[in-house]
């Protein structure tokens, strides 16, 4: 274990999102619940091998401290050069890997595309997509939710937004899977594939404009000039990694919760108007994203020295189980009202797709409950869950009569 000299030994913990208890893939696992016990330990600690490539990170446990980190994007930079090593060239994902003040112009450009109003304009088409999928499987009396519903729905919405053909869904999912969960070699290869694809798409939309995201991007202006190819590719690449499997994972965790907790399922069936509030609680309880920053300068957090270049990890699912902000945090209460969870992060890099993601989850649960009778985990099965770079649920077998 490599521990930098400036890290006090008493703050070092043997921990990683891949190997800690509850993190490796397991049947019937509860990766978010497994990390709740971090609140019994130090509020900030150093984990020497806590990234896919064996780097150490600080881990910020409490919600209030995560807010300090994420709201201060100048000190805690998101310029992580995710793609640089794989590509051998500087190509930031945009706007995530751009710090303020340059970040603002890119973000203002994209905000209207996924604003609450714009998302409501997509509502009917998104709902129709969910209804069609559910109607197609309900007669079977059982299904594997991820393959049969969650991925086709969430990825379908995403591909439509990006203007990419639905026929290539499996191919895109394969790239995303390798990029998020593959070996370092597989990650590199997947990143190069995605970037090459985005370069082609940029070229195509400059030549043949359409009614889609990439056409908007190649025609857009920032600070009075057109975006160049590098910027357009950086935006496409970010949406690809951010949007492809996060919503599907959330749908999986949510439906599993309702399958296991029959009283919660009955409660939402009796009161469908309570679904938006319930979705917030499920977002809190089953967050999947780790937010990582890099200290841009030497700084200090709660009396702990953090050196320029240190990686700082803000696990959303841990902040969301903070007893200081959520009374009885491990109790999942679908009527919980005071619920300022961090599923979509805090600060200027707040998830650009949060409004769309929220509506997708509400639509998915509404239409599922409306069309599928009382459902349960299929006898003899247990869903496969995992921690890691993005927490997830790989399969979920449900049955109904």
């Amino acid at each position, binding site marked *: 274990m490599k521990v930098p000299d400036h890290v006090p030994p008493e703050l070092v913990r043997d921990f990683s999102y891949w190997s800690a208890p509850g993190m490796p893939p397991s049947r019937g696992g509860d990766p978010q619940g497994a990390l709740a016990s971090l609140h019994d330990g130090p509020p900030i600690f150093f984990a020497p091998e806590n990234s896919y490539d064996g780097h150490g990170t600080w881990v910020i446990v409490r919600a209030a401290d995560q*807010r300090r980190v994420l709201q201060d994007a100048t000190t805690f930079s998101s310029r992580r050069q995710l793609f640089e090593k794989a590509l051998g060239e500087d190509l930031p994902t945009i706007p995530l890997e751009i710090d303020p003040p340059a970040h603002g112009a890119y973000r203002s450009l994209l905000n209207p595309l996924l604003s609450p109003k714009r998302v409501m304009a997509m509502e009917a088409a998104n709902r129709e997509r969910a209804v069609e999928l559910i109607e197609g499987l309900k007669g079977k009396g059982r299904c594997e939710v991820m393959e049969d519903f969650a991925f086709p729905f969430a990825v379908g919405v995403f591909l439509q937004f990006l203007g990419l053909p639905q026929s290539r869904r499996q191919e895109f999912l394969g790239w995303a899977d390798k990029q998020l969960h593959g070996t370092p070699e597989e990650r590199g290869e997947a990143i190069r594939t995605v970037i090459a694809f985005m370069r082609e798409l940029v070229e195509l939309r400059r030549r043949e404009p359409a009614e889609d995201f990439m056409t908007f991007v190649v025609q857009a202006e920032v600070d009075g000039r057109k975006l160049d190819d590098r910027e357009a590719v950086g935006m496409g690449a970010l949406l690809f990694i951010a949007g492809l499997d996060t919503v599907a994972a959330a749908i999986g965790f949510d439906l599993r919760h309702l399958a296991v907790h029959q009283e919660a399922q009955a409660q939402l069936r009796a009161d469908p108007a309570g679904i938006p509030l319930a979705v917030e609680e499920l977002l809190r309880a089953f967050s999947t994203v780790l937010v990582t920053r890099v200290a841009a300068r030497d700084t200090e957090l709660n009396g702990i020295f953090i050196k320029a270049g240190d990686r700082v990890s803000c696990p959303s699912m841990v902040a969301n189980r903070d007893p200081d902000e959520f009374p009885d945090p491990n109790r999942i209460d679908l009527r919980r009202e005071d619920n*300022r969870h961090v599923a*979509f992060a*805090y*600060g200027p890099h*707040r998830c650009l797709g949060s409004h769309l993601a929220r509506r997708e989850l509400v639509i998915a649960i509404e239409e599922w409950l409306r069309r599928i009778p009382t459902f349960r985990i299929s006898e003899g099965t247990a869903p496969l869950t995992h921690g890691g770079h993005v927490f997830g649920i790989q399969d979920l077998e449900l049955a109904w009569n």
Partner: protein
Amino acid sequence: MRIKVLNEKCQGHARCAAQSPEIFRLDDDGFILPGDIAVPEGQERTAWRGAKSCPERALVIEDD
């Protein structure tokens, strides 16, 4: 009851407007419009819930 709006802290989560679109008015991008909010009588409860829903703590409740 008044609500002080700290626009520089708003990141467009739009949770306040989800509680009450009448009290918390957003721009087209989903960020709160500038200016403190004088809560109409009888709407204190909803306004309180909206202010308390902000993940960034951009809405500060000021009792008269």
